[in-house]
């Protein structure tokens, strides 16, 4: 997935500008758009965590496991252990990283769709733990956990989320540019050939799952700290699978081959999802699931037309325009030469 539009530095600046515009515009528009913008930042981090795995050849269908673990770890650290919520926001996701390493250790030994089945099968287990009577003193069971107010002025919540979103983008870009990034591309393309050149695919897949687990858990913690102030067991993506599915939709429709594509998908689709959901909930109680149906159809349509997502489609178009301009320039030089003769 070679979606290179410009140098790394220019790309990073462009992403920073887009994030800043989203934050500034929504702040001007009012309280509700500001909340939507916070979810954009959260789901950007979350979708990046999913696409990092997908670009290493592992399709996670249970990413909500880590999202919910981050949310619960944040809440439990802040409530049951009296940790400062700001500290809990960063320490809680360590649970997601540990779970990611464990899931990754096994996933690295599975091929193809077995990774999807395995990760998907873990989400009911997460839900069962959250509602179990043994853990009720910490999780508050099916009732869910109300979390204390995040100790920052509420006008700072969106800027804070924006900074975290940009940090997550930078982490992905650094991974891409370092030694490990080359190994991940090789593993994604051909795991056997990667082994032939000396790459320990199982080790890297496990590490990547740990990083992805942290990022997804951070998104979960941000979601609770800066948006809902409440943790429900269904964050585990069970029985409502949507928590596992949104990052897949956003990444694939936007273009999972590059973090910019993931950003595009999130910025376009997250507000759309909210709009569809609120519109449908007026019509029926299953509005959320109907929104999934609509997004499923949208995914099919986009992938038929643009297999590498919207960003991939645009990148390809720009590339072909450049190539045409180059050919035209060459033809021009030739014409000059021939008139010269």
């Amino acid at each position, binding site marked *: 997935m*070679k979606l290179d539009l410009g140098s790394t530095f220019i790309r990073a600046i462009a992403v920073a500008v887009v994030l800043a515009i989203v934050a500034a515009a929504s702040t001007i528009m009012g309280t509700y758009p500001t909340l939507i913008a916070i979810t954009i930042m959260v789901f950007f981090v979350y979708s990046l965590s999913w696409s990092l795995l997908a670009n290493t050849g592992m399709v996670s269908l249970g990413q909500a496991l880590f999202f919910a673990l981050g949310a619960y770890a944040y809440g439990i650290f802040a409530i049951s252990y009296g940790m400062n919520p700001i500290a809990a926001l960063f320490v809680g996701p360590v649970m997601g990283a540990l779970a990611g390493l464990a899931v990754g250790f096994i996933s690295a030994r599975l091929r193809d769709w077995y990774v999807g089945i395995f990760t998907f099968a873990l989400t009911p287990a997460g839900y069962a733990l959250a509602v179990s009577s043994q853990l009720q003193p910490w999780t508050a069971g099916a009732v869910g956990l109300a979390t204390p107010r995040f100790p920052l002025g509420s006008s700072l919540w969106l800027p804070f989320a924006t900074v975290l979103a940009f940090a997550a983008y930078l982490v992905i870009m650094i991974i891409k540019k370092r030694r490990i990034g*080359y190994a991940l*591309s090789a593993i994604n393309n*051909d795991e056997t050939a990667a*082994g*032939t*050149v000396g*790459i320990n695919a199982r080790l890297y897949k496990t590490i990547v799952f740990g990083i992805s687990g942290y990022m997804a858990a951070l998104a979960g913690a941000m979601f609770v700290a800066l948006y809902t102030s409440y943790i429900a067991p269904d964050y585990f993506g069970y029985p409502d699978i949507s928590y596992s599915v949104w990052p897949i939709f956003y990444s694939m429709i936007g273009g999972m081959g590059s973090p910019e594509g993931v950003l595009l998908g999130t910025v376009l689709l997250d507000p759309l999802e909210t709009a569809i959901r609120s519109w449908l909930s007026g019509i029926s109680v299953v509005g959320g699931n109907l929104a999934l149906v609509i997004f499923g159809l949208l995914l099919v349509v986009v992938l038929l037309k643009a297999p590498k997502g919207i960003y991939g489609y645009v990148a390809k178009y720009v590339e072909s325009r450049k190539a045409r301009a180059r050919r035209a320039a060459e033809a021009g030089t030739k014409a000059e030469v021939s008139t010269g003769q």
Partner: protein
Amino acid sequence: MSMLEVSGVVKRFGGLTALNGVELSVRGGELVGIIGPNGAGKTTLVNVVMGVYYPDSGRITFDGHDITRMPPHRRAKMGLSRTYQVPRPFNDLKVIDNVAVAAMYGSKDLPVGEAREIAENLLRRVRLAERAEDYPESLSVVELRKLELARALAQEAKLVFLDEVSAGLVGEDLREVLSVVRELHEGGMTIVMIEHVMKVIFNLAERIVVMMNGQKLAEGTPSEVSSDARVVESYLGRRWSEV
């Protein structure tokens, strides 16, 4: 002492015995050819030596270490490499980065910058420098073969298996790839060439191993092998007239 020692290796796939007690010994600096008809077990032998599958029985040693059950990436770090009959490039990486990644993770662990410098030099050496910034999907078969040779070089492999490096090539393209192979060998690399057609290795190999039905049928210099009655009868006799 030999660099690679394969002894009594058996590999079964269900009811099919692909390798039935193969013996192979390669000394450092040699260029050995392995020939045999389709289904003789040549590629299975490469896969077993590289660790794609572990043998059901038998033993493989490389540089004096038992590698029979060692994972593939560790064999690569010890200096074993291969090319594929159907080239397997990393399509998301540019040609130069395909080679650089092998330098990063091969015998040594090198940082990106140094690995890319090495890759640049190696691409010049295999005469592929002008394609450095392209993606592998735009490469021709010859270029892909050269890319895989450059990858093996970048790993600083001591011993490389070339699995039908000549397949699908004729005329100038074939000569070009074979001349690169010869240069690598002259540069000190130990090479085992798997070929389907005798002609390709006849002038290149110092020693030829003939495989048949998962076993070693004969072994010797090219002229010894081609005059061996069993070989002529079971393999070359049919094919020799075509060559």
